[in-house]
């Protein structure tokens, strides 16, 4: 017996606008919600919710800048001349926590920051500076739903990116192609999509002259810059950094819009591309001069996004898996260390924040799953269930989870189904799974208890039964998709 929910009627969007659909939307664009918030959202139309999500995100303030944001390298020097590594680590940790907290608190924007950090990839270990991390993160946050061209301009001149892809070492004597190549291949156009090795070489020349000074400043050194003429996309000129980006978006705007729309579609909708939707997204992108918000409005209001055939097709990344679980369990995160534990757990299962394995980023989807990662995901989820955060009210908390999902007290199967329905996007998919689930739930209680109706959910220790059921669900493949 689940709560009866208001049904939303619409010609293009899903007719059944209920908790399951709201859940689907929020698992995709954010990291889930607590149950009651899902219920509340069923009262608005899908269009309204999408507009709210986007408008709220556009209005969010940026993270408050830390007191150390402009510290130079010197500030970390100890009296003996050595680097104060402990303090560096502490500041980096602070910003790591800020980022994970952003995912939990800001929902969609947190998801976008994570998404863009996997698009404009840098790796912390190439720069090891809290200031560089801060500046990089700030651009991702500021442009999360802003103007894509502007983000390209700005991200390329962050110290983190200049360090990671050798922009700071790129000079006119012998240019370094690293950034120029990835700018085209990964950040804007996609592999082999409208550029040549010649373009890469010439863009590298145009990008010469930038250096990173003292951990937080980017300088332009005219003597290191190649002033000669360069031919890029067939156009000859004395191109500079700004010129190249302008040229790139002018000459290859269509390709960029399609590539970025495809990338967004893959991440938020489905790994199998629907070219029709992508074209609509790309059109919105071009019409709005590379603003991202209209692109997301097109995608998230498109009936295709809600189509049954793509629900449950996304394999959750570690952050999606853990934060959604926390949210849906209605857990509050009261201490900052708890965010750091999530960071560590994600790292442990293949998603090292701000340090993807290479410049192409995490591949995602099936790559999140191998025997090591999958079994560790189970362990982390169990850890969250049993030991994470404040568990002083363990019973009360678990009973509350079940209570809000069902009014049933006596029939274990109905109780199990309500809990299963809440955690698994499309329910159980194999017949023997319900039997197994109920068996887990009944535990070692004598079957007679249930047969004679002596058992009910208010008995002592029944919260352990709920825990054991969830313990079982965590290990089902259905739990790992959304």
């Amino acid at each position: 017996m689940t709560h009866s929910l208001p049904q939303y009627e619409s010609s293009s969007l899903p007719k059944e606008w209920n908790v399951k659909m709201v859940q689907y939307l929020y698992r995709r664009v954010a990291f889930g919600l607590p149950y009651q918030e899902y219920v509340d959202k069923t009262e608005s139309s899908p269009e309204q919710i999408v507009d709210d999500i986007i408008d709220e995100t556009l209005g969010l303030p940026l993270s408050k800048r830390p007191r150390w944001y402009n510290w130079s390298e010197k500030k970390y020097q100890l009296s003996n001349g050595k680097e104060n590594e402990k303090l560096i680590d502490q500041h980096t940790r602070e910003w790591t926590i800020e980022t994970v907290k952003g995912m939990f608190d800001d929902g969609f924007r947190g998801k976008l920051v994570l998404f863009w950090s996997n698009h404009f990839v840098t790796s912390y270990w190439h720069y090891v500076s809290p200031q560089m991390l801060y500046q990089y993160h700030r651009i991702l946050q500021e442009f999360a739903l802003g103007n894509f061209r502007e983000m390209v301009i700005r991200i390329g001149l962050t110290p983190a990116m200049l360090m990671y892809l050798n922009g700071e070492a790129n000079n006119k004597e012998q240019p370094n192609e690293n950034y120029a190549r990835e700018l085209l291949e990964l950040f804007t156009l996609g592999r082999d999509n409208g550029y040549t090795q010649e373009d890469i070489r010439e863009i590298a020349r145009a990008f010469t002259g930038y250096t990173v000074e003292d951990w937080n400043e980017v300088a332009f050194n005219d003597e290191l810059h190649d002033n000669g003429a360069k031919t890029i996309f067939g156009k000859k000129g004395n191109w500079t950094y700004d010129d190249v980006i302008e040229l790139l978006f002018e000459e290859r705007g269509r390709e960029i819009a399609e590539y970025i729309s495809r990338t967004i579609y893959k991440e938020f909708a489905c790994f199998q591309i629907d070219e029709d939707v992508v074209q609509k997204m790309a059109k919105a992108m071009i019409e709005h001069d590379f603003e991202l918000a209209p692109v997301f409005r097109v995608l998230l209001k498109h009936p295709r996004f809600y189509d049954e055939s793509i629900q449950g097709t996304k394999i959750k990344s570690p952050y999606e898996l853990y934060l959604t679980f926390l949210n849906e369990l209605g857990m509050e995160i009261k201490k900052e260390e708890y965010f750091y534990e999530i960071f560590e757990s994600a790292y442990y299962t293949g998603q090292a924040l701000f340090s993807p394995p290479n410049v192409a980023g995490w591949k995602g989807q099936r790559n999140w799953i191998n025997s090591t990662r999958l079994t560790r995901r189970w362990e982390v989820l169990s850890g969250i269930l049993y030991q994470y955060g404040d568990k002083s009210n363990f019973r009360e908390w678990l009973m509350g989870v079940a209570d809000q999902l069902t009014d049933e007290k006596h029939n274990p199967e109905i109780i199990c189904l309500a809990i299963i329905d809440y955690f698994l996007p499309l329910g159980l998919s194999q017949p023997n799974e319900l039997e197994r689930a109920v068996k887990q739930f009944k535990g070692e209680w004598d079957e007679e208890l249930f047969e004679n109706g002596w058992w009910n959910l208010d008995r002592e220790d029944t919260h352990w039964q709920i825990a054991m059921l969830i313990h079982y669900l965590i290990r089902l493949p259905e739990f790992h998709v959304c």
Partner: protein
Amino acid sequence: MCEHKKRKGLDLSDASAHEKDHQVWSRRSFLKTSSLMAGASFFLSQLPIASAYARNKMSSKGSNKIIVLIELEGGNDGLNTLIPLYDFDHYKSKRKRLHIPKHQTVGLTKEYGLHPALKPLKSLWDKGMMKVINGVGYPESSLSHFRSKDVWSTSSSANEFLDSGWLGRYFETVDNPKGIPKAMEIAEEGSQLFEGKAMPQSLNVKAPTELFDATEDAFRFDLSNEDSLYGKELDFIRSVTNSAIDYSKSIKQAYLKGKNQGKYFRNDITHHLRQVAKYIKGGLGTRVYRVSHGDFDTHSEQSWKHRTLLQELAQAIHAFYEDLSKMNLQDEVVVMTYSEFGRRLEENGSEGTDHGTAAPMMLFGTALGGSAIIGDPMNLRDLDANGNVKYDIDFRTVYSTVLQHGLGANAALSHQVLKGNFQPLNGIF
């Protein structure tokens, strides 16, 4: 924390389950004591070394070798790995800052010397256990890491896009004994090369006893074979779950049975090869292992980066064969390195090198029957439009050699797997 009383069944006295969860959580928590993430991958897979057991008889004979692949990720600079003494002045003129001085190279033949950091490999060369295949690449080589990695993993041509890997396709045709994984990866990121047309053919295991513990309360699943995207993704996760359950016991047993001997250094590649040695010595029977090493993408400050990577590699391979030879297994195991591409002849302005094309591959093991450099010297004066050397030997002929002479596949199967008639190279095995 730890307010809960139990988790298994409803017996309040089940303290061992609590203990296990506690261990799980605290194993993660000790990470906190290390700085942000430093060395965590090494740390996490550290496990106690078990005592020795009797050796299991190896079943592999003849062309049934165990192949250990070492991927040099990021594009290894072949020209500073195997230094072209045959055209040294020209090489030096293109690499004013990065060239390896002639007198520092470790001489293999009159024409070639190794990077000094590879010195530990010299003893393998002297024992007749090392072959280098020169100028390996493919037509129209891609300068993109990711495209070229795909080409090497899927064994495609430059303009062909395949989803399955060459070893994935091979292993789909091979039955394995119960409980014995066909292939294993000990690497942070799995490789496409073991992707089958339907299911992955390898197991990624970083910590065998942990894997075993974690599968204790997991269930096997029947595959649904549903055609929907959802059904296929679930089946994928199901099959990984099943593999973890099916293989974790024998993996753990072999791991505990095999004992490392000799001196190993402390770094990731060594640590991973040590694990491979334990599985092999423990008689696991897995045919192919993959470990990875890198980042070889040395666009800047190449000198020290490359030196460090090569030194770790050489020490690891040397120690690995020392270890295997204690059980006389050096004849059973062939190590092969590969990388998505080499690097450009001319250095860039940031003391690094940009993406290149052809490069040497290295193979090790007594099964090779003598040391040699295979293939002609690369022509450093006949470059392509991007200033890169031209390839001489197609990497698929090397794969064909491994399939036919190393793994015992027949020619027809090799052609089917590699999607083409690539004749194995002579003089490798």
